[in-house]
């Protein structure tokens, strides 16, 4: 998931008649639109979740942006460029959705830059080789799809519409990644080794994307009642493992989990949970690339200030000229 561990603002105290009517609308499958009445907790939780999701799309450009200049062919470079540009678009759709809840774009950026708001832990890992571009598209976008597909049915209209738009584009992301993996895994022994190494490094961080185990996620119930979370973390993680393992087998690569085994009784793969201490540590800011990623965002924001202001000044001047000419 691109939004991990979003703290849910459960209603404190008694449910008011408005709260109950609101919940009834959600239970009937109605969409909530920006001007509709909504509980303060719903609004706040959504800002947090959509904001975190938007930040993840934007910060998520950085690990892949790292390889645009070093893509092995012009075609791969164009594809990666298009993929990264899509992620910028995803961020923009989601920021717009968050803004309908009464938070400003600048506020969201400020909260990202100050560390008050988070982005997905996955983007705090480095991209060391070209094979990582394959692993990210295949696994990271794959995990994102797992989460985003059900969110198309979320109760908040603008969020749902943003998810529908995003899901249409994600399949390209995953397939271009898998295509890189196929090329690498079918290449020279060194290339195959790079592909295996990328899988080794991205497997557990990808499993972490779905957030902590259900028994440790305290905020799920309210978010699920509000239909801003559709499946539990463990459900989605299991689904991801079940889908991904055969894809790794096709590539001739080994999932780095000695205890991974098909469980015929359950009809699912048994697998090893990721190291949750590492997860919480990365979330706290101690991952291998936290400083670098956030630093790059802050620098882009600050370096771009003169340009944003210049365009505003130009727009004001042009408007004044038009007015004078009328």
């Amino acid at each position, binding site marked *: 998931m691109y939004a991990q561990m979003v703290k849910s603002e459960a209603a404190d105290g008694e449910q008011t008649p408005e709260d109950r009517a609101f919940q009834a609308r959600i239970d009937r499958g109605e969409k909530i*639109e920006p*001007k*509709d*009445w909504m509980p303060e907790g719903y609004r706040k939780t959504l800002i947090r979740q959509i904001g975190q999701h938007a930040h993840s799309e934007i910060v998520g450009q950085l690990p892949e942006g790292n390889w645009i200049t070093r893509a092995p062919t012009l075609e791969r470079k164009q594809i990666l460029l*298009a993929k990264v*540009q*899509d992620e910028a*678009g995803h961020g*923009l*759709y989601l920021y*717009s959705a968050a*803004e309908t809840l009464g938070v*400003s*774009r*600048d506020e969201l950026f400020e909260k990202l830059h100050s560390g008050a708001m988070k982005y997905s832990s996955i983007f705090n890992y480095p991209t060391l080789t070209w094979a990582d571009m394959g692993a990210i598209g295949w696994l990271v976008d794959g995990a994102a799809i797992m989460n985003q597909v059900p969110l198309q049915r979320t109760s908040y209209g603008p969020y749902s*519409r*943003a998810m529908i*738009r995003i899901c249409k*584009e994600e399949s390209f992301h995953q397939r271009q990644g898998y295509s890189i993996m196929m090329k690498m895994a079918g290449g020279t022994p060194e290339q195959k080794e790079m592909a295996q190494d990328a899988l080794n490094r991205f497997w557990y961080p990808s499993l972490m994307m779905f957030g902590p185990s259900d028994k440790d996620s305290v905020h799920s119930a309210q978010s699920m009642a509000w239909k801003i979370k559709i499946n539990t973390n463990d459900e989605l993680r299991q689904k991801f493992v079940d889908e991904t393992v055969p894809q790794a087998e096709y590539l001739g690569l080994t999932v780095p989990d000695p205890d991974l085994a098909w469980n015929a009784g359950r009809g699912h793969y048994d697998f090893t949970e990721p190291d949750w201490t590492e997860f919480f540590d990365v979330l706290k800011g101690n991952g291998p690339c936290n400083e670098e990623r956030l630093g790059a965002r802050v620098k882009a924001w600050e370096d771009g200030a003169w340009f*944003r*202001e210049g*365009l*505003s*000044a*130009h*727009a004001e001047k*042009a*408007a004044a000229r038009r007015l004078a000419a009328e």
Partner: protein
Amino acid sequence: MKKEWPLWEIFIRGQHGLNHRHVGSLHAPDAEMAINHARDVYTRRKEGVSIWVVESADITASAPSDKGPLFDPAEDKVYRHPTFFDIPDEVGHM
């Protein structure tokens, strides 16, 4: 100076002959830049043949609480639909 670019609502005509449809919003300093940004944000896959941009602040929307007074009156006017009238088969196509 610290000011956010205003918000624009974006409408795209998907194909010739169709209406422009609201697709989302974005920030831009002026209308011209809004169109440029809309091209990049909303038509990366040939989703459109024409773009309209309108500053969000210029849109007046009906209030959710007016839903009843505005739209309920249409509910008991089923005779506005052709299927309300039974026309005998002998009359032929109508």
